[in-house]
């Protein structure tokens, strides 16, 4: 990763090398009347990077993308693309291509017309237009569709054409605004792989907005998790998944979501619950974010897939026994609901596991794979 991030909140990773900026967002503010949608936002995206903006609806991720595209005017701040300040430039002068959720194809034009519209507006010679349309159609395998109107295409084909419209413009930066949200599950998975392949082939910078964490985890070089107009955490999918910086990020990423147990950190040991069903987790092997962590109320987060079951329990650092309350078989794996220290606790087991409600189930927990948060600030400890 060749980029740096400064976040207003303060937990900034160490700045990395300054080579090859593609898109830079500097101190961006955006207000609609009294509502602050984006708040002093900074973001550096490296050359050829695939960055995913992830967050729930209304977190400002699409707004940020629209600002980068030049479709929305920021209240304050700057947008730089390829080392140029494009804050006051029109969308077509920024060297960007954009793909929308609703495809936004021009309904009265053929696929070829849709692809060439932007090039015609740029007064490009006809030969060049034809060459570029042919190339894009080849990459996306939509050659047989060129003379059709969008109305005669399926959802997946429409979205390919929409990607093609960005492709023909031969731009440095691709912007995707939830491009797969209107497609059904299977098509979404297919097109997701295709977008990834496209990125590997073209090596363009891509900024991708989604609320789907699977898309984010599979596609991204880095993920920016947004909430209320600020970036909560920016990091590789691995960092986001394994070392979430806050309770919010930990809860947001992962399906089924992380188990949380509220308790107390005392002398390097996490304790929760009373006499019955309480847990004591010695936090040896856990990488604390800061070297000196004093005693305090804390929340521990354990991913359901990190709970050890079966024969391996014996070798786990901490063992515990729970009563199975509910079983959700999902084919490839089975989700077991139980209680630990008086709180709901999900355990992901192999799909072949034979468990029934009422069973006593021995489980193992590895504190080094858990996440520990301060109860008050909700930041990672």
């Amino acid at each position, binding site marked *: 990763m060749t980029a740096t991030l400064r976040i207003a909140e303060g937990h900034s990773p160490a700045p990395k090398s300054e080579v090859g900026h593609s898109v830079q967002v500097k101190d961006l503010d955006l207000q609609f009347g009294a509502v602050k949608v984006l708040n002093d936002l900074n973001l550096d995206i490296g050359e050829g990077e695939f960055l995913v903006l992830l967050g729930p609806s209304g977190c400002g991720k699409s707004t940020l993308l*629209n600002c980068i*595209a*030049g*479709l929305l005017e920021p209240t304050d701040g700057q947008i730089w693309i390829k080392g140029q300040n494009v804050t006051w430039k*029109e*969308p*077509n002068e920024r060297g*960007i*291509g*954009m793909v*929308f*959720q*609703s*495809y*936004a*194809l*021009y*309904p*009265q034009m053929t696929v070829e017309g849709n692809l060439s*519209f*932007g090039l015609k*507006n*740029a007064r490009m010679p006809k030969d060049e237009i034809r060459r570029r349309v042919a190339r894009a159609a080849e990459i996306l395998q939509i050659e047989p569709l060129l003379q059709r*109107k*969008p*109305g005669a295409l399926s959802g997946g084909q429409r979205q390919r054409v*929409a990607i093609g*419209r960005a492709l023909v*413009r031969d731009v440095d930066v691709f912007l995707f*605004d939830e491009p797969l949200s209107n497609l059904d599950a299977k098509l979404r998975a297919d097109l997701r792989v295709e977008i990834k392949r496209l990125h590997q082939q073209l090596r363009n910078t891509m900024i991708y907005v989604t609320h789907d964490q699977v898309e984010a985890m599979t596609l991204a070089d880095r993920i920016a998790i947004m909430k209320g107009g600020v970036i909560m955490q920016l990091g590789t999918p691995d960092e986001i998944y394994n070392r979430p910086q806050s309770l919010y990020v930990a809860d947001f990423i992962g399906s089924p979501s992380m188990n949380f147990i509220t308790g107390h950190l005392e002398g390097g040991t996490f304790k929760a619950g009373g006499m019955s069903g309480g847990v004591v987790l010695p936090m040896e092997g856990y990488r604390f974010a800061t070297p000196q962590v004093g005693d305090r109320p804390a929340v521990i987060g354990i991913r359901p897939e990190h709970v050890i079951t079966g024969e391996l329990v014996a070798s786990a650092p901490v063992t515990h026994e729970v009563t199975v309350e509910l079983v959700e078989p999902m084919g490839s794996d089975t989700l077991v609901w139980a209680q630990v220290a008086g709180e709901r606790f999900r355990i992901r087991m192999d799909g072949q596991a034979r468990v029934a409600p009422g069973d006593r189930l021995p489980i193992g927990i590895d504190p080094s794979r858990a996440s520990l948060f301060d109860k008050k600030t909700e930041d990672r400890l």
Partner: protein
Amino acid sequence: MAEFSTNPATLGASRMDDGPRGPRPRRVLSSTNIMLYGTLIIVALYYLLPLYVMIVTSLKDMTEIRMGNVFSPPVEVTFQPWVKAWAEACTGVNCDGLSRGFWNSVRILIPSVLLSITIALISGYTLSKWKFKGSEIFFAILIVGAFIPYQVMLYPIVILLRDSGIGISNAINTVWLPVCETFGGECRRVRVQLFGSLSGLVIVHSIFGMPILTLLFRNYFASIPEELFKAARVDGAGFWGILFRIMLPMSLPILVVAIILQVTGIWNDFLFGVVYTRAEAYPMTVQLNNIVNSVQGIKEYNVNMAATLLTGLVPLTIYFVSGKLFVRGIAAGAVKG
């Protein structure tokens, strides 16, 4: 499909046992249907009767009309009343029938429709897709205009047209006359007359068409997805490019609606026609009134009926022709992109 709709006679018996199956049978001659269609037919006849009487009467001569059988078809069909209504009927000193009014109306109608729709199209597009500071207030003010009764504005507009005509004339003359004189030509003062002329009436129609048409176009454009507009901007299309190349080709249904609205509205207008034009420029409606309501001589019912039908022919044609187009337009617009 055909294979499954097996003969009910053979299968019926075995399937009778397990009760209702498939679509519920409906009786065509139920009491509800008789009531419903009976009422509809009676109401339709009631509304068609005047039209029938008009057509029948317009094809009779005066002796036959005086016999008083209003509903009876003409014994001897004559087209003389139609000819007279079109080309010979007198209004005031002019005895060239409705034809003069017809051409006046056409000369008012075409520029008014074009101008009012063009203005409303552009303002509706701006107000929905290129919102500026205060555009909502601007729109609200425009809509309020639709609620002010015309009568209130009649006289102020008379003054406005008269004075702006004089103003424009003066402005042109202050430039034109000196230029003309330096080249030593025969120079006459240019006189622009808005009040009492067809161009004045065109302006009035365009202004009064604006609120409702702008509302129509604004709402239609607002229903076109915002992302389409954004995509066009990323593709480098500007204000006019998006309007003409993206929005306009998608606007056929609403254009047809606007044309129907304006053609019938302007053609049927009487008030503005009588107030803002002079006798020789009267539109067809005003002339029709002058023919039908003339008090001198005998009342020629057949000519009056023919004249009325002639005047109503244009909106009637528009409804018939564009009705089809309208449906097709909606169908074309239904294909989502």
